[in-house]
């Protein structure tokens, strides 16, 4: 695979690493009992701890610790029995403590890896450096008032898992696949809701470029990207920017960049002279976090089937391709839907590939068109299963089935109901089809002549005419066979 991008003078390779911030799906914050509910009125979920009132002490949320361990297991990572909370010091209006409680030297989770799957059937491992627990900051609104910034501390103190990858990523697409995979694992584990729009999952991207085989170049960090589309755009823009500088003889300055979502450009943050000096030190308010082997084992045993295991199971049980299986398992709701559909009728197990296609292309495109989600699909897995069975038993043709699905989608009726009501059963009676073909042949003597003279393309015309007469219900294979037979007899 060629992952190089062309500059004016040379070919370049991107070197990319991601820091993903995933909000732990918990009721209360990491060190206080305030609610984590999204979209509440400003400053309504702020305890005295979150607002850093003097004398307040943090008490850790046991559930958040368990979710971090669970996620670590899902990332095939080493769980550390001993980890430490540190203070990361900086001043900002939405950080009342003047420091963020994070983990620096001793994170709760160590090295791991995740696998991404390409369309061509190959896959690649992306190594994980670590996962640590930390507090989120509040939210600043800069655009409401010309001279003021508004601060909402509802998010202040919410638990985040920061997942850091090695710089193993080489293209914007790989970056997108990597974050999708992490999102998928988090959602199977139910440790994060994966909602990128609400900011429950966001990423900082580290990127540098180099000539293939060279040492890593100087990197820049693009902060706070909250969609896969923006991640790809930002990487593409930043790589081009760096290549232009290098090719014109300049050098890259290590910088923190912001991505402007409306212009698609990156620019360095100001105040760069204040190169961050976070002065990490162990938080004296918190004892080290120790987790026993027994606790880790207990959490491990509670872990549900993860996308990769499920993918392998689908490949083995249903003989699906690696890619089909990875599309099905990317989101838990999709694999759940597939499981329900295929188990709705014993017959369907032999038609797994058809089931995949009907879910991932036909149903998905209808859902997309109507801006709906698989979770509240108007077509239940059982009903889709019934439709597919009608196709697999030749009762209706695939073409008609598409219309039936649209009808099911809008009317909520079952496939059976629609087929019976509209009389859509496929005509598989040899005599009936032959009769229609005779009619078509009799009505179009000139066309028959041309066909026999060698204009093979006209076969489609006859098929079309015959289909029209049967209102699309003739079994296409039988129609074709009988038609050819009859025409050739004329010869």
């Amino acid at each position, binding site marked *: 695979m060629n992952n190089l991008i062309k500059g004016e003078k040379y070919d370049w390779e991107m070197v990319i690493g991601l820091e993903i911030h995933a909000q732990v799906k918990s009721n209360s914050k990491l060190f206080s009992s305030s609610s984590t509910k999204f979209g509440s009125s400003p400053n309504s979920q702020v305890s005295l701890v979150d607002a850093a009132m003097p004398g307040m002490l943090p008490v850790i949320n*046991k559930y958040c610790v368990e979710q971090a361990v669970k996620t670590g297991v899902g990332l095939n990572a080493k769980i550390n029995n001993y980890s430490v909370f540190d203070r990361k010091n900086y001043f900002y209006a939405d950080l009342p403590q003047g420091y963020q409680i994070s983990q620096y030297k001793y994170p709760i989770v160590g090295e791991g890896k995740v696998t991404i799957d390409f369309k061509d059937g190959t896959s690649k491992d992306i190594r994980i450096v670590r996962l640590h627990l930390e507090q989120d900051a509040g939210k600043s609104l800069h655009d409401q008032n010309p*001279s003021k910034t508004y601060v909402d501390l509802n998010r202040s103190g919410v638990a985040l898992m920061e997942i850091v990858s090695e710089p193993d990523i080489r293209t914007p697409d790989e970056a997108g696949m990597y974050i999708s995979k992490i999102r998928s694992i988090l959602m199977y584990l139910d440790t994060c809701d994966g909602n990128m729009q609400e900011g429950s999952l966001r990423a900082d991207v580290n990127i540098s470029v180099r000539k293939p085989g060279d040492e890593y170049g100087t990197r820049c960090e693009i902060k706070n990207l909250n969609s896969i589309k923006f991640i790809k755009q930002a990487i593409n823009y930043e790589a081009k920017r760096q290549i232009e500088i290098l090719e014109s003889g300049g050098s890259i300055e290590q910088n923190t960049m912001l991505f402007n979502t409306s212009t698609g450009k990156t620019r360095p943050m100001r105040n760069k002279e204040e190169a961050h000096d976070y002065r990490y030190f162990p938080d004296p308010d918190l004892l*080290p976090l120790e987790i026993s082997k027994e606790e880790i084992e207990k959490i491990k045993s509670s872990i549900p089937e993860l996308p990769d295991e499920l993918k392998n199971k689908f490949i083995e049980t249903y003989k699906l391709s690696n890619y089909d299986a990875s599309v099905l398992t990317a989101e838990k709701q999709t694999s759940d839907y597939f499981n329900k559909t295929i188990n709705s009728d014993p017959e369907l197990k032999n038609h797994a590939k058809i089931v995949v296609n009907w879910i991932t292309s036909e149903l998905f495109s209808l859902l997309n068109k109507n801006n709906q989600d698989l979770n509240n699909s108007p077509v239940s897995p059982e009903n889709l299963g019934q439709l597919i069975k009608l196709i697999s038993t030749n009762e209706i043709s695939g073409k008609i089935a598409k219309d039936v699905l649209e009808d099911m989608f809008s009317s909520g009726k079952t496939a059976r109901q629609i087929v019976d009501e509209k009389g859509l059963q496929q005509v598989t009676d040899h005599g009936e089809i032959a009769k229609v073909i005779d009619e078509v042949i009799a009505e179009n003597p000139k066309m028959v002549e041309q066909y026999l003279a060698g204009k093979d393309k006209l076969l489609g015309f006859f098929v079309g005419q015959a289909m029209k007469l049967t209102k699309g219900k003739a079994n296409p294979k039988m129609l074709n066979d009988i038609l050819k037979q009859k025409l050739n007899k004329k010869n």
Partner: protein
Amino acid sequence: MKIDKNTINKIARLSRIKLDDKESEDYIKDLNSILDWVEQLNEVNTENVEPLSNISSSILPKREDVSNDTNSSEEILENAPDKLEGFFAVPKVVE
């Protein structure tokens, strides 16, 4: 380690404290004497000794994941010098 003028300026800036020349000189003196005092510890051989992170044998207390549903807005904003529609209002921060 010695604290010089540059270091004291950097620490002051990181702490958002404005120091005049006289104060800088005083702090340089104070911090150096504190450092000198602490540095006596270097005389102790600590090879193969794990750093001591706390002197109690207690373990980190944990709480259950239960949220309280009180609306904190009024109480939290009570001391704010400036507020608007439930938000703290602070001088414009560009980034």
